[in-house]
């Protein structure tokens, strides 16, 4: 029985945050710091014919004005296609054309407004289907020359940024064997991450050694360091990235955004640091979005509901630059088959450049998008065949030891239980409240699976100082989900100390070891394992020291909450007493831990199948929703969401519940309210008055259910919880609407106007 795992330990950063002491990137203040503002493109696609910055340079207080001519570098972690600052061409409204660093932000903004640009407009394209047409304007003629990993195949001369395919079995045979074949198309829209803290960064250049220091709330400090180093031709040990607390990211802070601009400026300020904070308007129009996608899926099914074949054709809206799109859409595409056993599979996935704001990683990493199509179609199949939607899913869904599409044998599969418990909680199969006036009730359910980027590495260092107090050095970023608290609990459990006494400072790539990123729901599992390994070593050394001081066999000693006991004797001493005797003149013990699942038996796939599709662990989630639709106004009110998540083992129930609740809120918001209103690529609703997020008033009762299918390789059995949480909400709501009024909406978001229009066509 563990002491600290499974307990709602209060967050380590709670006090600091509620008292306003926590330092976010927007709070970073440095001596001699300058402030940045940028001039952004007003054109979706144009050549820069003339750029006159003299107006900005002459404003008193301006220290540097930088254009793409001055700083001719490109970046991109997957495909190097994006200039730090536009060269001679802009590809979306909002692209940085010039940047200014000045004594104050107001001066910088005033100066940026005085820069004059002459554009020569180029034909622009805003829809990925149109961008695939033979005569579509091309965004990146030089695509073939962009450095990129061989994983990402492009089609030069077109707008296809990447194309990926996968086949297994033979779908044509499968369709031939099926009793019915359904071919449906779905659309999922772009949405904003809308973190409370907008994108921000501070950079300082050292004219002496040519290196950079960057303060950022990015979710992957070591990867940002690598991307910057690669872009600028510097060694990694000259690019230091310091993490602050992050005021939310949700995937949107997983590439160089504000960082790129401040780095470019810092090169020209003689060593003075430069800070940039995105305005909310910039955050909503020139940061990153979720990828919109057209998802066409064709599914063959037997009369009894057995799925026999599925083919899919996916077209993703890239926006102007690659960002993390190549991987997001690959992961998404490989999940279009859902958490179901289907013998014959085929998918083609194309990521297509358009003249719009860049799309990037968004909670769920492509899986959120495909879950929309997969689960909405599952409901439609259930309805067409007259099978209960829960029964149809239970019939086909993965269970323990089933194989994923590449043949990986899946372990810790708690999917069935998530379906059963979510259904029970929503009252599936029990009578609903009767219609009252214009109000109709309905229930819906949807499920999902999500893997984690595999294999990836996490390392950590644990220090027990001269007084026995423990510090955990990790580059896992506290993005708000409680990562530092969960890791401290794992460390505490392993070492035998109280987690609230553990110090977990924010990371610094020069001082905290490598980890892949606080992404892909991977920290609890990967960093947790690294912490557990380092913790075991520290514990061993602590007990050795205790044995030496207490003059007994360390094998007879154990430690809980910093108190050391001897077998058969009882409590002997505290860690503090032992360490102060061991280190009268100071000292510390340091241990390193690392974890990477590469080579694990658990990842083995079928020969000839992509091994990279295996996941270190699989997460499963089911959401069931009850809604009330006003048939006169088309307004949907979500009354209740039961969200059952298989997280392996719950490390901290309260944090886990918050993850689930937060993602249900996010899901409701982006299903029913959030939407970009665009005019030729320009975001019209770039304020939170017009970009509608759900408010407290819009929220239903949320019941978070934690299912624990313990993972054999997870730390204390834990898997992850961050991403899958948001995916099933949209299809569950759509299913509930169908149940209420017989109207099936296939393109998100679900607006009152769409419901009214659909009702007029098919009155209920």
């Amino acid at each position, binding site marked *: 029985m563990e002491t600290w795992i499974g307990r709602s330990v209060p967050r380590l950063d709670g006090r600091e945050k509620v008292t306003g002491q926590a330092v976010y990137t927007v709070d970073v203040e440095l001596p001699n710091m300058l402030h940045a503002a940028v001039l952004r493109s007003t054109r979706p696609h144009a050549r820069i014919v003339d750029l006159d910055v003299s107006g900005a340079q002459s404003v008193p207080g301006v220290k540097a004005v930088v254009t793409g001519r001055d700083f001719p570098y490109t970046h991109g972690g997957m495909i190097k296609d994006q200039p730090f600052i536009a060269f001679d061409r802009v590809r979306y409204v909002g692209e940085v054309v010039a940047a200014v660093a000045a004594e104050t*932000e*107001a001066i910088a*903004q005033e100066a940026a407004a005085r820069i004059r640009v002459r554009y020569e407009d180029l034909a622009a394209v805003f829809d990925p289907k149109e961008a695939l047409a033979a005569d579509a304007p091309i965004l990146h003629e030089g695509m073939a020359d962009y450095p990129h990993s061989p994983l990402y195949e492009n089609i030069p001369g077109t707008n296809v940024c990447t194309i990926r395919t996968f086949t297994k079995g033979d779908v044509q045979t499968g369709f031939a064997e099926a009793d019915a074949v359904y071919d449906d198309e779905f659309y999922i829209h772009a949405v904003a991450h809308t973190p409370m803290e907008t994108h921000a960064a501070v950079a300082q250049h050292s004219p002496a050694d040519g290196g950079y220091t960057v303060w950022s709330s990015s979710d992957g400090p070591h990867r940002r360091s690598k991307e910057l180093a690669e872009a600028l031709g510097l060694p990694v040990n000259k690019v230091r990235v310091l993490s602050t607390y992050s005021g939310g990211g949700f995937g949107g802070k997983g590439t160089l955004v504000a960082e790129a601009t401040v780095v470019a400026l810092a090169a020209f300020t003689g060593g003075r640091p430069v800070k940039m*904070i995105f*305005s909310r*308007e910039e955050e909503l129009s020139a940061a990153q979005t979720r990828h919109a996608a057209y998802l066409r899926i064709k599914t063959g099914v037997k009369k009894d509901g057995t799925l026999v074949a599925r083919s899919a054709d996916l077209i993703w809206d890239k926006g102007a630059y690659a960002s993390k799109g190549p991987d997001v859409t690959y992961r998404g595409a490989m999940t279009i088959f859902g958490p179901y056993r289907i013998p014959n599979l085929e998918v083609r996935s194309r990521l297509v450049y358009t003249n719009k704001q860049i799309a990037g990683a968004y909670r769920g990493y492509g899986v959120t998008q495909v879950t929309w199509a997969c689960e909405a179609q599952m409901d439609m199949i259930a309805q067409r065949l007259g099978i209960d939607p829960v029964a149809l899913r239970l019939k086909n869904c993965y269970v323990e030891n089933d194989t994923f599409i590449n043949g990986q044998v899946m372990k810790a599969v708690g999917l069935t239980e998530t379906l059963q418990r979510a259904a029970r909680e929503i009252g599936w199969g029990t009578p609903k409240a009767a219609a009252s006036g214009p109000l109709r009730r309905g229930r819906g359910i949807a499920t999902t699976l999500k893997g984690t980027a595999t294999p990836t590495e996490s390392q950590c260092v644990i220090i027990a100082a001269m007084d026995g107090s423990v510090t955990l050095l990790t580059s896992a970023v506290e993005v708000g989900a409680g990562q530092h608290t969960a890791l401290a609990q794992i460390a505490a459990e392993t070492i035998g100390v109280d987690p609230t006494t553990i110090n977990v400072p924010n990371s610094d790539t020069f001082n905290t070891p490598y980890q892949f990123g606080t992404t892909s729901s991977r920290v609890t599992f990967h960093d947790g394992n690294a912490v557990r390994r380092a913790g075991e070593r520290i514990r061993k050394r602590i007990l050795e020291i205790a044995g030496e001081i207490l003059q007994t066999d360390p094998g007879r000693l154990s430690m809980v909450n910093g108190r050391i006991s001897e077998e058969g004797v009882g409590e002997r001493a505290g860690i503090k007493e032992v360490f102060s005797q061991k280190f009268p003149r100071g000292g510390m013990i340091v241990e390193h831990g690392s974890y990477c699942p590469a080579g694990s038996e658990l990842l083995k796939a079928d020969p000839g199948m992509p091994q990279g599709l295996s996941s270190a662990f699989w997460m499963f989630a089911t959401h069931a929703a009850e809604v009330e639709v006003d048939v*006169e*106004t088309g*307004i949907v009110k979500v009354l209740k969401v039961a969200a059952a998540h298989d997280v392996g083992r719950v490390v901290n129930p309260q944090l886990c519940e918050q993850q689930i609740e937060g993602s249900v809120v996010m899901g409701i918001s982006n299903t029913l*309210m959030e939407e970009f*209103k665009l005019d030729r690529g320009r975001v*019209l*609703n770039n*304020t939170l*008055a*017009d970009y*509608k*997020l*759900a*408010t*407290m*008033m*819009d929220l239903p009762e949320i019941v978070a259910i934690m299912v624990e299918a313990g993972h054999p390789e997870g730390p204390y059995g834990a898997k992850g919880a961050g991403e899958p949480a948001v995916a099933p909400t949209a299809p569950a709501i759509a299913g509930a609407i169908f149940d209420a009024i017989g109207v099936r909406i296939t393109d998100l978001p679900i*607006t*009152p*106007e769409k419901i*009214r229009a659909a009702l007029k066509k098919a009155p209920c």
Partner: protein
Amino acid sequence: MKRLKPFAYREPKTLREAIRILVGEGPRAATLAGGTDLLVRMKQGVVTPSLLVNLKRIKGLDRIQRPKAGGLSIGTLSTIAALERSALVAKRYPVLAQAAGFLGSPSIRQLATLGGNVGRSSPAADMVPSLVVLKASVIAEGASGKREIPLDTFFKGPGQNALAPAEIITAIVVPDAAPSSGAAYVRLGRREGMDCALVGVAASLTLDGAGSVAEARLAMASCGPVPLRARGAEAFLSGGGLAEERLREAARLAAGETSPISDMRACADYRREMVEVLAYRALAAAVQTDRKAR
């Protein structure tokens, strides 16, 4: 973060001083009340006043009181939250408290003033339709003295009103409601809080001794360039009873009297359709409040 453009700022202690400053500065001066609208538009760069005249240091402009002659006088600086909480308002004009509860969020209502809602003269203003059906007037004061402007004639276009340059709203006055009458406001947004009205409809019904409609008033937000009256629907209702079909027919007529626009928030057709739905609901609710009052 977006920074405000520089501007001058004054805090007069009296109305007269405020008017003098406004006259002196000319058309680029702006009066500042709660600032929940003005500062937002200044940040967006939609308006760039050279001088802000903050009215909040002027004593007595935030009173909600019942004058001897009857009715209600609401000082221009009364906050929306004060209206929501006022016992006087709740007793005599519950529709105003109800409308107040729709505006923005608790924190916005704490700052936002009634004078600001009327003074901004947005067709979407949430307090205005209820004030219109209650036959409210604006009391304004300028260099040439004080005057009363009925709300029905106050609005001239989006953001435009009958105030002369350097004229300040000091209060909104509402006459006593007729004995057998009820009023209600319903509105639709894209979410439950912090949202601007896609459509808002206020209705008031006054019955004669025989129980038929002596007077009906319907006013609508976000349905045209100014807050609109549905005069055809009002005329249709007058003299008749309260049968559901009559209310529905009136609602249909009201929808036909609107000229909503399509914008990024909603398309015109949906808005017009919603006027019908909301007008019926407002009328039905007005009947209910009347029943409750009796």
